[in-house]
């Protein structure tokens, strides 16, 4: 059985992370994703991070399962060829700056004119209009404006801190993935195609809000400690753990595991609502005891008392974690040029329409000839196009 999106074809003009991470997920589900790049260096993300064979590692992971076409959109005749491609696809996705695609004649209306039920997805940083819409955007800019760095601020000093991975690009990508899937379903049910817009700022805020902005949700209510004050990182004799106690039974379990019976009986800590404003002081009692124990000892004690707890994996621990190994989560892909590449398999396990990783990322324009032949471009036409410089 093939993936859920078997037979769906996507023309992907996006670069960096917000688009490619999304089309990577759809490719896992079986979609035929055609990555269209400018001839030459192509997607900027090709060169960001550790490189091998001219390709950076994050690029190779995010652009798995895609085929590459190089097309110089400014060359004469390129637009016609682009529209021939559009006629054969279900989705066009782009993350140029607002207005660019319309200006060069490749916007939603242009594509709809050749493919009536096209699903056209536009990803932007801040939106198509508004005070910041023309700004250059990378992930940290959206982390700053969208509140991630403020929420991540050190509770003791108030100093903003970044989330140390590309969280806003990837959240926008997850959101865009949902937009594409839902639009495909609606089209299947007779709704036709449409223009779907996702901005990184909106997606980031919608993602962040529920727990992180809980003190600003009910207008006029007195503030409580943030939900993140439940989070604990504690040093043990030989490493670090995290633990959390929310329900009464977890609180009682924590007191048993750490031999703190006086806390368990103290009426000021009875019930989750009364405990909430006092979580910091309660956690500090626990952290003092944990510092005197080994990681293995404390993890075993908490497990026995049914208190959620875990050893904190550093980057190099991940590939050796017993549960990650058990889940067969990290696949190794042997590429003739790149050598061995490892990354997680698709996270969603479909019993009927399994997702799969079928290839790593293409080089710029690696499949140009193959794809153009598929859409009916003859060998002669191809030669003419080449001589006109369409492919760089």
């Amino acid at each position, binding site marked *: 059985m093939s993936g*859920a*999106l078997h037979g769906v074809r996507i023309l992907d003009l996006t670069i960096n*992370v917000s688009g490619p991470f999304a089309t990577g997920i759809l490719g896992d589900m079986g979609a035929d994703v055609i990555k269209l790049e400018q001839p030459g260096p192509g997607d900027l993300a090709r060169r*960001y991070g*550790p*490189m091998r064979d001219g390709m*950076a*590692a*994050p690029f190779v992971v995010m652009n798995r399962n895609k085929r590459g076409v190089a097309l110089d959109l400014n060359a004469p005749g390129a637009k016609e060829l682009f529209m021939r491609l559009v006629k054969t696809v279900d989705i066009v996705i782009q993350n140029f700056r607002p207005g660019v695609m319309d200006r060069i004649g490749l916007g939603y209306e242009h594509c709809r004119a050749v493919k009536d039920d096209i699903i056209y997805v536009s990803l932007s940083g801040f*939106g198509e209009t*508004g005070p*910041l819409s023309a700004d*250059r955007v*990378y992930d940290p800019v959206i982390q*700053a*404006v969208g509140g*991630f760095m*403020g*929420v991540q601020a050190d509770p003791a000093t108030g100093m903003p801190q970044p*989330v*140390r*991975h590309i969280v806003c690009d990837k959240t926008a990508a*997850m*959101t865009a993935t949902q937009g594409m*899937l*839902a639009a495909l*379903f*609606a089209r299947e049910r007779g709704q036709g195609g449409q*223009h*779907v*817009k*996702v901005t990184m700022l*909106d997606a980031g805020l*919608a993602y962040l809000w*529920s727990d992180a*902005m809980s003190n600003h*949700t009910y*207008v006029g*209510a007195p503030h409580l400690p943030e*939900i993140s004050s439940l*989070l604990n*990182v504690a040093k043990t004799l030989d490493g670090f753990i995290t633990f959390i106690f*929310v329900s009464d039974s977890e609180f009682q379990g924590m007191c048993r595991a750490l031999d703190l019976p006086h806390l368990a009986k103290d009426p000021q800590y009875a019930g989750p609502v009364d405990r909430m404003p006092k979580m910091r002081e309660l956690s500090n009692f626990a952290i003092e005891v944990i510092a005197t124990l080994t990681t293995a000892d404390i993890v075993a004690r908490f497990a026995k008392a*049914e208190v959620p707890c*875990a050893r904190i994996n*550093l*980057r*190099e621990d991940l590939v050796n974690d*017993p*549960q990650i190994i058990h*889940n067969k989560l990290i696949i190794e892909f042997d590429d003739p040029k790149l*050598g*061995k*590449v490892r*990354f997680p*398999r*698709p996270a*969603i396990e*479909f019993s*009927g329409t399994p997702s799969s990783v079928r290839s790593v990322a293409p080089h710029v324009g690696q499949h140009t000839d193959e794809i153009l032949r598929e859409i009916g471009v003859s060998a002669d036409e191809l030669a003419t196009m080449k001589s006109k410089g369409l492919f760089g």
Partner: protein
Amino acid sequence: MHGCLHGVRIVDMTANVSGPFGTAMLGDMGADVIKIEAPGNGDISRRYGMMRGGMAAAFAVINRNKRGAALDLQSAAGKEAFLKLVASADVVTQNFRPGVVDRLGVGYEACKAVKKDIIYISISGFGDSGPHANDSVYDPVIQAVSGYMGVQTEPGTDKPMPIRTIVCDKIASMSLTQGVLGALFARERFGMGQHVRISMLDASLAFLWPDAMSNHTYMGETPRMPEMGIYHLPASKDGFFVGFVVTDEQFQGLCRAIERPDVANDPRFVETVSRQKNQKALNVIFTAEVAKYTTAEIVARFQREKVPAAKINNRVDLLTDPQIAHNGMIIETEHPDAGPMRTPRPPIIFGETPSSIRRHAPQVGAHTEEVLAEVGYSSGEIAALKAKGAFG
């Protein structure tokens, strides 16, 4: 105009965040989401964090667009009513601990028996089996095991740090949304339902990996690069600021913005790859220069030079940020029990099938009789179910 999922019914047994956050997004798209809870206290997250009108703020945001049905799945009558609801539904979601739904008789096979093409989604913390499968799980436990806390380690120290939002629950939830949508599309095309399984661990690692694990992707000898998410947040005269360059043009713009033409020609920084390697040295220069300006001044300087940059918004700033306001991202509404509240609007803008917020989060079982009447129970039959303890 209807949302993409108009006419789709979801019977949602999930609690906390990993499921409900995802089914809310499906509700935004027009699905009829029926939240099944145990009679009495219901979902534990009803009582977590800021409360008003008997409902926590985060719960009110995450459970928008749902109807509530209280059913005691341990009673025969409750189970009978549940399966009758399933027979009218397209999707069932659950995030009990592994094995519980089968023990209760509401697992995939039981649901398939009453609705042949049902799409059944299971979310677990660690997976259905393996060393941690039966552990108690909250977000920080998955943050610890899947590497988020390790990746967040403060540079220059060895101390892991938490992400201060419920990141792993919410990522798993976005994967649930994608799993439901992918399976709905496949059912429309290929005609079959299926069991879709997602673990928080798998979803979290797949999300984190591409950029954060870039030094661990190419196996064998590959020169390491500085980690990608080490965003530098220098202090201005009156606050904090983030600026970020990737391309050579942006780097030249940065040097003009801080009036350091000497740095523009420094061979350590002139090109993308060498700049990544010498990021620390560049940050030192950058920090000293940024301290000379107010945040407004330095942001304006960067914008003039077309370099990505922004002021860092704290929680309160989000409520008045001009671009967020322009985008209409924050909706003010009135919950019948909790009073005036703010919530983000659905972030995906569909041109033809708009998403919307149509309902407030329900109290436990607020719509039990209504939904049972819809699936064909007479008022006499509902009274009989009640007498048999179906509703607690």
